[in-house]
């Protein structure tokens, strides 16, 4: 790709420099709140409110100890991890199967199915939360991780399905016919021919679901109202704020425990994050 839309002429060094410096300053201010909480997690309470500097006098690792053991963030970390991993598996398998069929086959009722799905795309979570809460209670799975995991996997799947369906619909028919000639059935064609081809979509959908599951708040806060044992990290930090209001450094450490894994994942798999996000408007 050549440099179209370049209104910064390559010869104009001064303009180039000014724009770069402006963006560096802007970026610093932009990221400052995140750097601030990272540095606060290693500071003493006294030091946090002392100045704007980001480098702690010494690294106070005890903050993390208090958060992990004292405020139960360790437990919440594993709760969140389980919910995230299992819901990703559920979502990839179910929407992958759905997207495959939608993208490659036509069958009676397909249009109705798609229509119902599309109509749910903009349903606000606040609108469905109360019946979901009631449903999990009635099924007796509101007090353990099963209910929370299922409900986390069960939010509106439209974007995932569109990503899968779009990708599957572009796979050449010859591949499928060759598989059929070899005597492969419907399921085997899907698992051994189709699924390996969609690795990029699987990655994108997984990342989007990780982001959703790890960072969700309304659902877990409602489901865990009476069950502190199954809290997720976000809910845990929120409860921390209510229970240990004066432990600023501990709260900062708990926040870092929550956000750091996703930020690291993002830095390594940025491409898939971007593809997932852009899929929403391209589709």
């Amino acid at each position, binding site marked *: 790709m050549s440099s179209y839309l370049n209104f910064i002429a390559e010869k104009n060094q001064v303009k180039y420099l000014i724009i770069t410096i402006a963006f560096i300053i802007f970026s610093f201010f932009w990221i400052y709140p995140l750097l601030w909480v990272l540095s606060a997690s290693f500071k003493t309470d006294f030091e946090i409110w002392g100045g704007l500097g980001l480098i702690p006098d010494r690294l106070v690792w005890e903050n993390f100890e208090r958060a992990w053991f004292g405020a139960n963030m360790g437990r919440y970390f594993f709760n969140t991890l389980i919910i995230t991993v299992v819901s990703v598996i559920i979502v990839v398998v179910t929407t992958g199967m759905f997207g495959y*069929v939608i993208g490659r086959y036509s069958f009676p009722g397909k249009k109705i199915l798609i229509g119902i799905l599309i109509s749910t795309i903009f349903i606000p979570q606040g609108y469905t939360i109360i019946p979901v809460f009631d449903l999990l209670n009635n099924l007796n799975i509101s007090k353990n991780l099963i209910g929370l995991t299922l409900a986390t996997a069960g939010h509106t799947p439209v974007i995932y399905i569109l990503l899968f369906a779009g990708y599957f619909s572009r796979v050449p028919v010859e591949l499928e016919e060759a598989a059929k000639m070899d005597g492969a059935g419907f399921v085997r064609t899907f698992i051994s021919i189709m699924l390996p081809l969609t690795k990029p979509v699987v990655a994108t959908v997984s990342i989007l679901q990780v982001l959703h599951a790890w960072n969700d708040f309304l659902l877990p806060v409602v489901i865990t109202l009476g069950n502190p044992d199954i809290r997720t990290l976000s809910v845990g930090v929120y409860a921390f704020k209510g229970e240990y209001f004066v432990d600023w450094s501990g709260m900062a450490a708990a926040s870092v425990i929550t956000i750091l894994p996703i930020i690291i994942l993002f830095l390594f798999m940025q491409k898939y994050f971007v593809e997932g996000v852009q899929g929403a408007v391209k589709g």
Partner: protein
Amino acid sequence: MHKKPLSKQIYDARWCYLFVLPCSILTGMFVIYPIGMSWYFSLLDWSGFTKEAKFIGLQNYYEAVNDKFFWDAFIRSFIFMFGTVPVKIVLGFIIAVFLNNQVLKLAPFFRTVIFMPVVTAIAIIGIVMTFVFSPFNGPANKFLMSTNLTSAPIDFLGNPDTVLPTVMGVYVWKWLGITMMYWLAALQTVPQDVYDAAKIDGAEGYRLWIHIILPIVLPFAIVIILVEAVGALNVFPLIETMTAGGPFFSSEVMEIYIFRTAFVTDSGTMPRLGYACAAGVFWGVAVLFITVLQGLWMRRTRRI
């Protein structure tokens, strides 16, 4: 060509039905069923914690439309939308235009930095921001005072006049990375030859943008506005963790109102799931109405 009978068609597609089943069950349980049930619940006088529920018809709706707090929250949700979406669209566009330059060596780095808040848990952002905007030596006030922009600390989140703009600012900061990515995707669809042709014709500077590039990205703009507008109506986690709707309900948007009437019992009132569902249904219909309106607008613009 004659068509196969329907029963044969369905039989032939048996694998298809099996494949759509798992996802359909999940969506049915957690999306479709709740939508239907909230209509039913909204007709009940029901606390949600006992089996006792009395059918009271439209009384919950009647009560909601006569509740001042309901309408305040309703209007505030739209203030939030109209205050944040245009800022995000314009700011996101400007940043995307700059960062779309391959000449800018650090563009990928800037993109990463601007996108960073997007991947950060929203509840954590809300909590951290209560520190950042604290009137007691919070970094925001520290900065303003050390640069002599203010003489006394501002109680950003404790003052009913500043709380909503502050939360809106944080919202824009948190999600601008997504808007930027949308715009980058849009700008990358502008074909090279269109640009070259315009250059040959002598279109330069702002003319190039207004006459050539804006018309190409316009269809994207409409989708972006739609997605952003609906997004700005769903701000529960940020506001709940930053202010819980306070002070004195001055930042209570619709979702906070629903949550408060459904679950929050600290003022000694009973939770009222039936009533909250009525407010939720009213709200859901309003959002749907806006979505449909925008959808129609989208189709009209596309036809032109």
